[in-house]
């Protein structure tokens, strides 16, 4: 009998223990709080580039230079900037700006922050091209570049250059938490769950209307929109195309859709482990995939068909002289040149069908749809496919080993309002992120030169040359230009999509 009681007690203790482990009550969306459902974990400690993007888009931290709604540079923490010599820029800082920890923003703080960023992020040095940073007076920072560098102000609007207070890092220089100058200050981060920011009352600019913003991480694309409809959140990003359609017909919700920076493309493996080392096949694939069908078919018209690298809606962006079009005849002659023969509707060579290993990741909403649609269109044209879906990290692991033919990815090439960002960081043969084993000296030279030139005829000519090489050499297949879609409850006011795709601007939003 005693033993039975003991057993019962043990079980009860276990049950009680589980109560103690149980989390605290949830918060419904309160009046002065905006709750957002996000696709990515908002503050992954390790994904450094994505973390900085979040600090910028949530405006915990500010950049020296910001971009307006036409992607033109406007003052951020710097009010004006001058190019005092071809290689030297001076930035005049805004007065009376204080960090969330109460310290003042000055030239020393900016210098410290930029140097930390360059240390921590492998490609920041490449992006900023900095030789030295000097604080020449309390409010003037002088940046010397290694070569004449016209793109610097634009590059300084990139999220990875956000300005951190010294107290964001520990003694050893490791990142601890974000302390910045933005209108929102960091409050709490719960791993795998949420990040909370609250209004910073001593902000230098327009004060936010709301008190608190909660970024809830809801990785499942279905549940994210469901959460909005169930009233758990006020605002949802990265919706499924089918949900976009339904919510736009529902009066209880507002749907916002604007073209923003962003391109879905297939990056070709031009290395020796892939059949795509043959440029003819790369070009043929470009001429075989009907982008209009992908947008209509896979995305319910949420997106613009992409036949070029930079979206034509950004008039400052350079374009190649030619574009690919859907041209099965051109593709057929290219494939025949490469030694393939079409039998029974299949492209064959030495008794084997032309087969592409396509990798992508399912954590971004539209990825599986775009990838599957592309694969289906290739199959229809007689090219076999093997599709593998991973997470971003899982895919990258295979890509780095060169075990792929096409990896379908998403980047934001227009984000800084300058062509340099993406061409330099992805396609330059020395770029840290170039896993495509594609190298072209003329292209490298054009990109290296373009970033030194002021806007004008020479800059246009240089970048046009780079774009022509990108077209002829076809290291990628552009698929879809991003149309950024978010939805909110009908009570939400004054939200506007920023074309960089990385800036929420919730300051004026109220509900």
């Amino acid at each position, binding site marked *: 009998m005693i033993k039975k009681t003991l057993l019962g007690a043990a079980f009860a203790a276990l049950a009680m223990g589980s109560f103690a482990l149980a989390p605290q009550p949830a918060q419904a969306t309160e009046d002065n709080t905006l709750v957002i459902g996000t696709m990515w974990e908002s503050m992954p400690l390790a994904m450094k580039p994505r973390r900085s993007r979040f600090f910028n888009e949530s405006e915990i931290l500010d950049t020296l230079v910001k971009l307006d709604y036409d992607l033109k540079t406007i003052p951020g923490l710097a009010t004006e900037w001058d190019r005092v010599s071809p290689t030297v820029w001076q930035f005049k800082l805004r007065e009376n700006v204080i960090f969330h920890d109460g310290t003042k923003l000055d030239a020393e703080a900016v210098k410290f922050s930029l140097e930390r960023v360059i240390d921590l992020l492998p490609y920041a040095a490449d992006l900023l091209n900095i030789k030295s940073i000097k604080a020449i007076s309390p409010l003037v920072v002088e940046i010397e570049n290694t070569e004449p560098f016209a793109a610097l102000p634009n590059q300084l609007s990139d999220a990875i250059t956000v300005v951190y207070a010294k107290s964001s890092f520990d003694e050893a220089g490791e990142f601890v938490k974000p302390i910045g100058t933005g209108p929102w200050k960091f409050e709490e981060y719960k791993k795998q769950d949420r990040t909370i920011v609250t209004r910073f009352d001593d902000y230098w600019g327009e004060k936010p209307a709301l008190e608190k913003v909660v970024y809830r991480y809801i990785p499942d*694309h*279905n549940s994210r929109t469901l959460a909005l409809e169930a009233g758990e959140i006020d605002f949802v990003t990265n919706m*499924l195309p*089918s*949900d976009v359609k*339904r919510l736009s017909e529902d009066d209880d919700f507002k749907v916002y859709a604007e073209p923003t920076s962003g391109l879905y493309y297939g990056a070709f493996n031009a290395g020796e482990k892939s059949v795509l080392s043959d440029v003819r096949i790369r070009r043929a694939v470009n001429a075989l995939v009907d982008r209009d*069908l*992908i947008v*209509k*078919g*896979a995305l319910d018209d949420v997106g613009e068909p992409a036949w070029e690298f930079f979206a034509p809606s950004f008039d400052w962006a350079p374009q190649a002289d030619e574009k690919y079009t859907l041209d099965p005849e051109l593709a057929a002659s290219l494939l025949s040149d490469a030694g393939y023969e079409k039998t029974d509707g299949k492209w064959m060579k030495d008794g084997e069908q032309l087969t592409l290993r396509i990798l992508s990741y*399912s954590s971004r909403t539209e990825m*599986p*749809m775009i*990838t*599957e*649609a592309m*694969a*289906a*269109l290739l*199959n*229809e044209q007689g090219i076999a*496919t*093997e*599709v*593998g*879906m991973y997470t971003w990290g899982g895919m990258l692991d295979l890509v780095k080993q060169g075990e792929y033919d096409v990896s379908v990815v998403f980047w934001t090439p227009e984000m800084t309002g300058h062509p340099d960002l993406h061409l330099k960081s992805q396609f330059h043969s020395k770029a840290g992120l170039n896993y495509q084993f594609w190298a072209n000296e003329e292209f490298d030279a054009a990109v290296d030169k373009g970033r030194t030139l002021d806007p004008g005829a020479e800059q246009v000519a240089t970048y046009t040359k780079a774009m022509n090489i990108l077209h002829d050499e076809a290291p990628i297949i552009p698929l879809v230009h991003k149309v950024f879609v978010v939805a909110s409850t009908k009570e939400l006011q004054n939200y506007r999509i920023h074309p960089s795709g990385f800036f929420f601007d919730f300051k004026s939003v109220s509900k």
Partner: protein
Amino acid sequence: MQMERMSFTGGKLFHAGRRVFRGYVLVMALVILAVLILPFFAPNDPYKAQFLFRLKPPSLDYPLGTDALGRCVLSRLMYGARLTTASALAVVMAASLIGCLIGTLAGMVGGIVDRAIMRFCEGMSVFPALAICMIIAGTLGLGLQAVIIALITVHWTDYARVVRNAVIVERTKPYVMAAEALGARHHRIAHRHIFPNIIGPLLTLAAYSMSWAILAFAGLSFLGLGVEPGTPEWGLMIAESRNYLRDHPRLVLAPGLTIAAFVVAVNLLGDMLGDRFRLRQINYLH
């Protein structure tokens, strides 16, 4: 996993007579056969995407309509039936073959070999099979083959345990002991006396492991750890259509109901085999 011969028969769902039983087994055999040739009757190409004919409601040409890429749902279900059944059969056959060999070895040789093998099998039985499968398949690099190998790796121990126990029981029977005393060889005893007597438990276990394999297979594919995207596999069809659950529920309901119906049928077969061979039948295979 625990199979005991008992004088009492529990868990009867159908009080099946011999004829009913034979009839059911015959029907199931036919069903499995039919499933394997089902794709030849599919009305359309299950891989053909038609982007301008997406998410269409059922029609004469497309009896269950089309999915998000405009592919014929019925045809995909029919191809999926073959893929799933064939993969599950492969798992069951390979696992039972390996399990039988090792189980017989343990039972016939006995001693330290037996103890070592049985300790190992017992050890395997307490692990979460799906998790271990995922880890094996993940290490092998995912895909159909990796999943099948993973399922076999996890599953053969169940057969080894059943066979080994049956061998021990049979070996203590007077006629087998007599045969051994007369100098009959091990493999001859196994072949002539023991196998005919363990066919019942084996068939029963096979039915249950088939249902387990189908569910595990679908579950892994659903999580994106099974077959390649685009393959007509039932679990994957659910995963790929779940975004359309609200507007086009049939895309999720059709494969789900198909899996459920198929697995119910296989489980009932297991129950009937259990009753027939007078085994106390508890299906707790994983």
